[in-house]
Every structure is written in C-alpha cells, then in structure tokens.
C-alpha cells in the first residue's frame, strides 16, 4: 500500500483527479438531495403544479451549470488563496488579472478573425493559443503588479497593501478601458463566431425524461481547468519550487535562512496565480461571449468568497469552495422562483447563496478545510 501511495502516477494524477470528482459529485449530490427533500416537504403547499416533478425536470442541467461556473470560481480562487498562503494578504486586483486574461484571449481570436485564420485553423489550436497568451500576459501582469504595488509595502501593516490592491484594481480597470477605447470609444470586446463550441453533446440517460445536454464549451472549460488543477497540484507538491513555496508560506524568515530566495518565490506565486486567473478569463470569455473591463469584479468577488469558504490559504479548499459556491448560485437562481411561487426571482440568488455562506462560516469560522491557526506575527 505504501508503495502504491508513493507511486507518482497515483500521487499526482489519480489522487487529485479523484479528489476533484469526489468534491464535484459530493457537493452536487448533497445539494440535489437537499433540494429534492425541500420539494417533497413543500409539495403540499403548491396546488397548481407538482413541485417535485418541476424540480427534477431541470435538476441535471442546474447541476451542470453550477459545476461549470464553479470550476471558473475555483480556478480564480486558487490565485487568491496562493497569494494569501504566502503573503497573508488579499490580492484584490486578482479579479482584474482575470479580466485582462479574458480580454487578451478574445482580442487574439479577433485578430485571427481579422486575418482570416480563424475559419481555417483548428479550433482547439486557436483556443490553446488564446489560453496560453492569456496565461502569459496575466501571469506577467500579476508579477508586475506585485513588484510595483505590493513589494514596497511588504513591511507595512496589513491593511496598507490591501488598500494598494484595491487601488490597483481600479487602475487596471480604467487602464484597460482607456486602451480598448482609444480607437473607437467602444470598450466591449465580442468573441468572434467560430468552431463548434456552441453545439451540444446530447446524452440520453435511462430513467430521466429530458436528455442531458452538455455544451462543448462547458466540457472544454471543465476539462482545461481540471488539467490546470492537476498541474498545479504537481507543481506545489511534487517539485522543488513547490516545496519552496510551501516553505515560504509556513515560515518566511526561516525559509530565507535556509537559502530560499523569498522574493523570487513570491514572484513565482504571483506568476502561477496570475496565469491560472488568465486562463480562467479566456475560458470564461468563451462562455460569456462579451467582455468589458469591469467584468472581473463579480467573478473575482465570488472567487474570493469561495477561497474563504474553503479555508483561505488552502489549495484544496479553494477548489471545494469554488464548486460549492457555483452550485449554490446555480441552484438558488434556478429554484428560488419555483419555491417561492414567483415572489423571489433569480435576482435574489446572491443574497441566498451568501446567506448559506454566512451559516457555514458561523459553524466553521476558518472555512471548510481551513485549520485554525494562531495569528502570525
């Protein structure tokens, strides 16, 4: 058994993928069961239609939607949680790193569209290029932001870099707005139409009336994020750099005394977090089809919440938190109106989702997978 667990294939491929599947299925199952249970309880109050039937009708699709957006949240949340782990501060400009990645990716595709390559090249090559470019630009932007706005403040009280991060966030939003609107005054970027990403994979499951519909871009989104999560897991737990990152996170002065170049490690952390955010941005753009410089705010805020929910500083926690938040949002948006008979529409989804979060945090203040650690000096 020991031999098996130390096998790198198991440790770095099977185990993380298994973990992701368990989290995704587990969270979906718990929420689905809870919703169906609620439907049975309130069935008697609804005279016009069968509540249970109506809930079950769209349940598979609601789960798929929730997981899709959940994986986006997870990927962004990793950027927050990694930086927090190393520096103990909330990098509020991360949502803008995410936005920049998405806009860079869309602009690349728009460029291909302009040159005509978009229709002739393989669609997956285009997406891969866009993701790569988004990762490179966002990663280097994150490193630059750290050097310019956070590093000079490293010894300062905790709130100071936080304010700097908020300022950086506004700066990046309006800088991008300025750059995009230089020529036309229009700062929305629209994804050009290409490939077969809008099509659906239809899967008929025996026992369920409506067949499951997986949109190709949703599958792509989940697939790419899973690959990135596995890669990140290997990087952090399987390489020397990862060991150094963990060492800096645990005790910065000691790590420095052991000969680890702390500044370098912090830069690498921002690079990885930024690159993940950039990739998530491109995938999100594929789904959203239209981006503007302010599009990062809400996903960023949600991902930050996801990181806190999972236990900030904990990588696995960010993954779990993102999935749960995505599912909660999808469930509440799709079912609030059904359960309240139209009194509360989808616009109250965030209030509901955050109410659940508050409950979780009351019961587990350090997050689902977080450990209660004493305040570090």
């Amino acid at each position, binding site marked *: 058994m020991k031999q098996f667990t130390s096998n790198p294939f198991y440790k770095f491929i099977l185990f993380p993928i298994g973990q992701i599947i368990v989290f995704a299925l587990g969270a979906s199952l718990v929420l689905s069961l809870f919703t169906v249970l609620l439907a049975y309880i309130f069935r008697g109050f609804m005279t016009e239609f069968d509540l249970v039937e*109506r809930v079950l*009708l*769209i349940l598979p*699709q*609601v789960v798929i*939607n*929730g997981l*899709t*957006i959940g994986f986006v949240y997870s990927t962004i949340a990793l950027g927050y949680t990694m930086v927090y782990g190393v520096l103990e501060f909330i990098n509020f400009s991360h949502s803008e790193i995410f936005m920049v990645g998405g806009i860079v990716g869309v602009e690349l595709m728009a460029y291909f569209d302009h040159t005509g390559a978009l229709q002739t090249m393989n669609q997956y090559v285009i997406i891969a290029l866009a993701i790569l470019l988004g990762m490179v630009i966002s990663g280097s932007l994150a490193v630059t932001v750290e050097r310019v706005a956070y590093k000079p403040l490293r010894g300062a009280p905790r709130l100071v870099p936080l304010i700097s991060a908020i300022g950086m966030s506004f700066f990046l939003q309006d800088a991008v*707005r300025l750059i995009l*609107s230089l020529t036309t*005054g*229009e*700062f*929305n970027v*629209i994804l050009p*139409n290409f490939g077969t990403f*809008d099509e*659906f994979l239809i899967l008929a499951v025996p026992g369920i009336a*409506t067949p499951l*519909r997986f*949109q190709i871009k949703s599958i792509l989104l989940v697939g790419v994020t899973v690959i990135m999560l596995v890669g990140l897991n290997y990087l952090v737990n399987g390489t020397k750099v990862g060991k150094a990152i963990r060492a800096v996170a645990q005790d910065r002065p000691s790590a420095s005394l052991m000969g680890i170049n702390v500044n370098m490690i912090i830069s690498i952390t921002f690079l990885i977090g930024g690159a993940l955010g950039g990739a998530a941005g491109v995938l*999100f753009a594929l*789904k*959203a*089809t*239209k*981006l*503007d410089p302010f*599009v990062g705010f809400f996903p960023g805020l949600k991902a930050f919440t996801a990181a806190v929910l999972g236990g900030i500083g904990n990588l696995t926690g960010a993954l779990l938190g993102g999935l749960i938040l995505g599912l909660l*949002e*999808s469930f509440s*948006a*799709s*079912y609030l*109106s*059904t359960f309240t008979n*139209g009194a509360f*529409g*989808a*616009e109250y*989804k965030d209030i509901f989702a955050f109410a659940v979060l508050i409950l979780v945090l009351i019961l587990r203040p350090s997050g689902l997978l977080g450990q209660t650690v004493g305040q570090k000096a």
Partner: protein
Amino acid sequence: MNKRLLALLSVLVLASMVLAACGQPPAATEAPVVTEAPVATEAPTEAPVVSMGTIKIATQSPLSGGQSLLGVAIKQGAELALEQLGGELAAMGYDVQLAPYDDQATPDVGVANAKNIVADSEILCGVGHLNSGVMIPSSEEYHTAGLAFISPANTNPVVTTRGYLEVNRVVGRDDVQAPAAEEYAFSTLGAKSVYIIHDKTAYGQGVAEFFRVAAEEDAITVVDFVGTEETANFDAIVTPLVAAAPDVVFFAGIYNQAGVFFKQAREAGYEGTFLGTDGMDSSDLADLAGDALTSGGGMAYTTVAGPVSAYPAAATFATDYTAKFGAAPEAYAAQAYDAMGICLASIKAAAEAAGGTPTRAQVAEAIRAISYEGLTSTIAFDEIGDLPLAKYFIIKVNATSKDTWGSNEIIASFDLASPGK
C-alpha cells in the same frame, strides 16, 4: 526613517511641481480658444453683427461604454442640427456652441455632469439623455436650476409625470409602448405564456411592469418575472426558462445585455419568440446575438423611434448625417436633431421676446409654447412636456449581423395618445 520621510517629501514636492507645470499650459491655451477666438474671428468677417456673447447647448448621453453607439448618435444628431440650423442665432450675433457630456449610462455620472451643466450660465438648453434611469435623477438638477432639457429617447413615464416645466421629450412613453408590445404578442403572435426579464433599471423594470399588467389583463400566463444585472453568464436563468418553454420572452432592457442573453437562451434550446422595446434598437444587437434573432420564433421589438426611412422628412438628414459622420444614423439621431432644433428655435423666440440674451426660464417657457416642424413630426408639447400624439413602431428583426440591420421590417406603426399625468 527620517531620511526616507524627507526623500518621500521631496519626491512629492517635485511631483506636484511637475504636475502643476503640466497642468498650466493647457489651461492657458484653452482659455483664449473657448472665449476669445470665436469673437475675434467673427467680428471682422460679419462686421454689421454686434456680438451678443456665447450660448451653449448641452448634450448628455453615453459617449463611452456598452451603450455608446446610441449615445454617440444622440450627440451627433444634435451636432448636425446645430451646424445646419444654428445660422439664425448666429445672425443675431450669438456664438452658439455644443457642450457634449458623457453620462456613461450611469445615474451618478449623469447627476455629477448635470451639476456642472447647470453651473455653466452660458448653457441655456440641453438635449439628453439616453437612459430614463439617468434622466430622472439628473433632471432634478435641471429643474432646480430652471434649465430646460429636451429628451430624444427617454420613455419612462416618470420623466414627465413629475410635471416639471424644464423636462420635455420628443418620443412616446413606456406606458403606451409596453402595452403595444403586449398587444402584438397577444393578437399577432397568439402568445399564451410569457417570460418577463428586466435589467433592474428605472427604464427596464418600468417597461416590464407595464407589460406584466397588460399581459395579466389578457390572461397570458406570466411564467416568471425576473430582474438581473448579469451581463455574461445567463446559464442559471436560462435553464428554468427553457424548461418552462414560454411562447414569448419579453426582455425589458438594453441591447448590450439582451444580445448575450438571447444568444445563450437560443443555444440552450429555447425556440419561442423574443420581444423587446426600444432599448433593443441598435445594430450592435445583431452583432451580439447573431442567428439567435432569426432562428426559432425570431425577434421583434417596439420602438418610439423608427428607422430614419420611416420619416419622409428625414431623407436629407440621413444623407447629410452619413456624409458627415461616415455611418448611417442609429436610432434617436433624428430625434436628437429635432430636440436640438427645438432648443435653437426656442432660444431664438425667447431672445426676440426678451430683446437680448434670454434667461433659462424664458427659454423653458418658449419650448412649451413652440410648434416646431421637425424631421419626425410637427412637435408641440402638452402641459407636462409630452407629445400629445406620439408615434410607435413594431419592428421585426431580419438581421443577423451589424451590416444587415437595415433589412429589419416595420410590421406596424401607430399614432397613440399620451396618457397624460
């Protein structure tokens, strides 16, 4: 530590000096351009005209951002009107200038601009806004300052029902427009169920409520009534919508949000008809939604500002506009042209009556008294600033891209009376 503080201070001082140095030259060069140059150039060429000073007419509309296509059209329509119709005031010795402001389709920006506008005593009249949600709070400022504004696009009833002397509009109202859309859904499309979604703005929610009331009167089932500020990922809203499969989805909002929503709803398998109001009237909608507008049950919208081709008097306007700005006029450009024309004519009338530069109050009174032969119709305002009889159109979308937007067809157009206060 002290040394660092000193260094920081000196850097700050240096920076402020540089900034001050940068800040001064534009101010110094700008001043003569604005106030002196026109007088200096005008005096020698038109010798007999005595210079009476400067009059500015403001425009406020979104010039940047997702709704800028329509906002810029408003500004450009007004600009063209000033150029073509400003001659009479210039002959009286006034230097008439346009003062364009960008409200970014945001209420607080609009109100902040409004404060700047009313503070500029040379501004005697204004054209704006695009969004009712921006117009309503901004017009409180105009009302307090007594500055007349003419709206080329705002349809929310509250814009005029407050009864302000200073607020007028050259278009119809949502409490007529939304029932007209509902009538189309009920009679022409034969809809039995409708899903209503709005953008949570004064305009969107207002239209949605009027539509709901009308739908309930006709016993159309309202499947759901949802407000959302989401602009990117509509999955969670679309899933129950597709399951409920209503005959009509009524979107009360602006095209930049609606386009993405339509596309995602179609992708998810919705087959019915999309219906909207005048906020949909932009060629950008076709760029965002593409095939989603024509597949399934298609898409139609009501509007208070038909395409320029619907107005016989506007043919020259369309060619002039295209020649000047290099693009065909979007919705509201002709309305903005008329609003500016009314501003100019009223200022002239007030100036003649007053025998000199009129006050803002005199201009506001003159606007209410005017009967103006415009591009869109003969315009005269009732006691709250509405058109007694306004034009409404129902337009079916045939376009799937920006370039083919002109292929949309007018299914019906009617003149309907304003419900008044």
